[in-house]
């Protein structure tokens, strides 16, 4: 029996192919009717409306109102900063230092159960700025920016443990696998810069508990996940082209694109292939855009000094480089930038001081304080603080009583965070905790409220930003969230 090669054109359609082709036809019809109304009646007008929208880098849902912020820099304080030692002064702790907390108030179970005595803050608080905001001596540099901060002292989280609390803070759900807020922002608004990813995480050395799932796209298209960059000589693996001649690489890429294009056609535009093609393209563009981005030669000495790049503390230098990189990313139109903490080692893992609070918090604060203040000042001088929202937060707070003798345990019932920049009313203090800083007593703000506020400042209604998955519409804020209007300018 001779086996004749069959030319694709003459080969009859298989059942699978037939179904595949038909499904797409129906699917796209349904899609047009679903999304047709969502496309903005914008610049595009009648002809090639969606085409032009794509060219404009438009996201799934265009802004609902004029955005105050165009970018977000999220300064993630991994491990949970102690609120009573940083932004929420509690004189009563000093008065009752060493007393038994169980006789003072009702206590929840703690993570490690090793409940000690009431522990006063080792740091003093002073008033700063015209607003007279009280901040501890842990953060002398950030304190000098007090009038730019909107401080929320009434944050609450749902989880007392790092991994779930991290997922909650980053994705609005305590479980693994939901899209991160950076992915949502890019899904909603689209990227401003076609040469860089819209969501960048700067790796300071510590990947938060919960791992990279904190930065993933979840069920959103793969293009919206975070890209991890390091500040330093090689910010991204293989960022230097392996081919010595640029022409050779371009030819290789062109060939790849052609082959993938064929495959894409036979597979009816499979999502994974399309994502792979755009990944190659973006990776190629990044080989030229990233070295330019991470090259600090063009920065003046004064600027580098402002951030603390000349510090004797290597952790300060590390975080300073991240902060400066963050500003440069903002200038290049990257929508969402998250900074992770440096690994300062020496028994002080993250801000998570279950023991040795004083030394650990001090070293962590020293690493981030000057760079953050430098970032705020630099953004302000350049006019970028008008369009950039800076968010500083951990995943939860710490207990006002000791764990053991000199540490503090996790406390999701109260913590402090602040925002500064675009659309924020500087010098505001919102909410309050009880006399011990243990629980929120006034105007609690949930993580959902925080997300709603962040999306609001980016020009999006958190209730409108939805993605249909598994049979229902999902939101970053699930079914919760209220914009904290009182801190908005």
């Amino acid at each position: 029996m001779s086996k004749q090669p069959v030319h694709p054109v003459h080969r009859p359609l298989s059942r699978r192919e037939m179904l595949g082709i038909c499904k797409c036809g129906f699917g796209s019809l349904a899609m047009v009717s679903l999304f047709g109304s969502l496309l903005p009646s914008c610049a595009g007008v009648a002809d090639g409306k969606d085409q032009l929208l794509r060219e404009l880098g438009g996201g799934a849902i265009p802004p609902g109102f004029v955005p105050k912020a165009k970018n977000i820099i999220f300064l993630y304080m991994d491990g949970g900063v102690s609120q009573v030692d940083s932004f929420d002064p509690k004189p009563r702790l000093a008065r009752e230092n060493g007393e038994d907390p169980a006789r003072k108030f009702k206590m929840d179970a703690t993570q490690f159960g090793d409940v000690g005595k009431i522990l006063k803050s080792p740091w003093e608080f002073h008033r700063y700025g015209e607003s007279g905001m009280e901040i501890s001596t842990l953060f002398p540099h950030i304190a000098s920016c007090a009038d730019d901060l909107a401080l929320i002292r009434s944050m609450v989280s749902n989880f007392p443990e790092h991994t779930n609390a991290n997922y909650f803070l980053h994705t609005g759900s305590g479980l693994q696998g939901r899209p991160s807020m950076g992915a949502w922002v890019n899904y909603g608004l689209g990227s401003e810069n076609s040469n860089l990813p819209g969501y960048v995480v700067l790796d300071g050395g510590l990947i938060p508990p919960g791992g990279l799932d904190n930065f993933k796209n979840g069920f959103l298209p793969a293009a919206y996940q975070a890209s991890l960059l390091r500040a330093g000589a090689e910010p991204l693996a293989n960022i230097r082209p392996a081919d010595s001649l640029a022409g050779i690489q371009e030819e290789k890429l062109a060939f790849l694109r052609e082959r993938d294009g064929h495959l894409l056609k036979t597979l009816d535009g499979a999502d994974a292939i399309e994502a792979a093609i755009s990944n190659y393209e973006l990776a190629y563009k990044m080989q030229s855009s990233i070295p330019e981005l991470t090259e600090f030669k063009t920065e003046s000495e004064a600027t580098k000094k402002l951030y603390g790049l000349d510090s004797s503390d290597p952790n300060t230098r590390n975080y300073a480089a991240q902060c400066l990189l963050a500003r440069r990313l903002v200038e290049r139109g990257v929508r969402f930038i998250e900074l992770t903490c440096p690994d300062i080692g020496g028994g002080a893992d993250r801000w998570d001081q279950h023991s040795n609070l004083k030394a650990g918090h001090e070293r962590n604060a020293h690493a981030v304080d000057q760079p953050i203040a430098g970032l705020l000042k630099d953004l302000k001088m350049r006019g970028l603080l008008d369009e950039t929202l800076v968010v500083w937060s951990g995943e939860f707070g710490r207990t006002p009583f000791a764990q053991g003798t000199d540490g503090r345990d996790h406390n999701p019932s109260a913590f402090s965070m602040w925002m500064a920049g675009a659309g924020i009313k500087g010098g505001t203090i919102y909410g309050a905790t009880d006399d011990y800083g243990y629980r929120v007593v006034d105007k609690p703000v949930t993580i959902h409220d925080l997300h709603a506020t962040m999306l609001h400042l980016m020009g999006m209604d958190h209730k409108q930003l939805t993605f249909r998955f598994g049979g229902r519409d999902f939101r970053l804020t699930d079914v919760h969230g209220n914009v904290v209007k009182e801190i908005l300018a």
Partner: protein
Amino acid sequence: MQLNPELSLFIGRFHPLFVHLPIGLLTFALVLQLVQWKRPADRIQGIASLLWLLAALSGGLSVLTGWLLSDGGDYEPTTLRNHKLGGIAVALLSFLVFLSFQGRKKTGVYAGIPFRLLLIVSAVAAMVLTGHWGGSLTHGASYLTEYAPLGKKDTGSQAATVNQVVRSLDSAYLFEDAVVPILQAKCVSCHNAEKKKGDYLLTSHAAILAGGKTGTGVVPGNLATSELYRRISLPKEHKEFMPTDGKTPLSEEQKAILEWWIETGAHQQQRISALAPGPRIKEQLTSFFQLDRESVAGYAAAPADPAAIRKLLEKGFQVNLLTKTAHLLEVKFNGNGNEHPDLGALAGIQDQLVWLQLENCQLKDASLPVLAALPNLYKLNINRNPVTDQGIAALDALKKLEYLNLYGTAITPAALPILEKMPALKKIYLWDTKINPALLDSNALRSPKLIL
């Protein structure tokens, strides 16, 4: 019936609870009657008889509570009279139907069926009419037909909101576009021709001013003697606070707008712009008309020409859509220190262009007059370019410009008087220029809008 008026109202307000009972019972009794007609059975007769009795009793209760309720309200008198008589008729007719069943039981005669049928039909008809009148009293006569798919629409009624029409603050009328929609949304459901609570009608300018039982509604220019304002600004717990009965109170914004309308003379036909609004009320009105959501400083444009946008993209500009319906655009060009943008292409979108960022792109003084011809710019970044004081002078033509970023340019203190003259400017960034803070301190032009 002489009851303490509060007690009588208290009992009266159970009226809505009882009125629906006879409606359900009567409807069910009617259905049973039809079944009975198809295949007669004694069991059904028994149930039907009981239903009619219950209908009569609950009808009587409704009449009683309704009577008490009507004492306290200001309802449209004709409809109220019809509703009262109708209610009594329903209760009486139901009772008569019940009696007609009793008679049959005793005598065992099926005679009188046509008579009973007549009674039943009358009872049901009376119930339908009474229900309709009752609905008209509570919700207003147009309630039922307002959203009817056919027939002519009364465009002046509650459904019409004006927010979709108002495109800019300057062209809006205060009374027609703001005051009327507020009253429509919060007050007219009780103060209309049918209901007219407190004898106060809020459906025309004259009636609003005239007022009702307790005083003059609105005294132009005088908040203190305007009953309308007094009622809406009382503490929520106050007995006389309006809107009453747990209905949604006016928002602060709505209150402020009514207040400003009364203060400025309660005109019927006056544009907002003619009343010289201050910054605070301007902000509130902007928010009320939702102009802050979709436009920049109350400005909206027609969609841009796609060809013009394509041209910009080809020339290396980044174009971003700022808002969905106001069609405003932001354009960016980052030359990385050596590329120069082709500014001529911007003219094609001059109506839509409100934010322009031309950073670090060798922009020179000669190019600035091109920017000055973009009338709608409200935010302009030309930082890190070799522009000088001469160039800045051209920007004088940008009357809407609120934000100007000049950091890293070659401007000197000589530019300050020019910048000071620009009418809308709120923020100027001057870091890394020849203007230093010390100079600014000694300068009489020192102003909070300068940021170094």
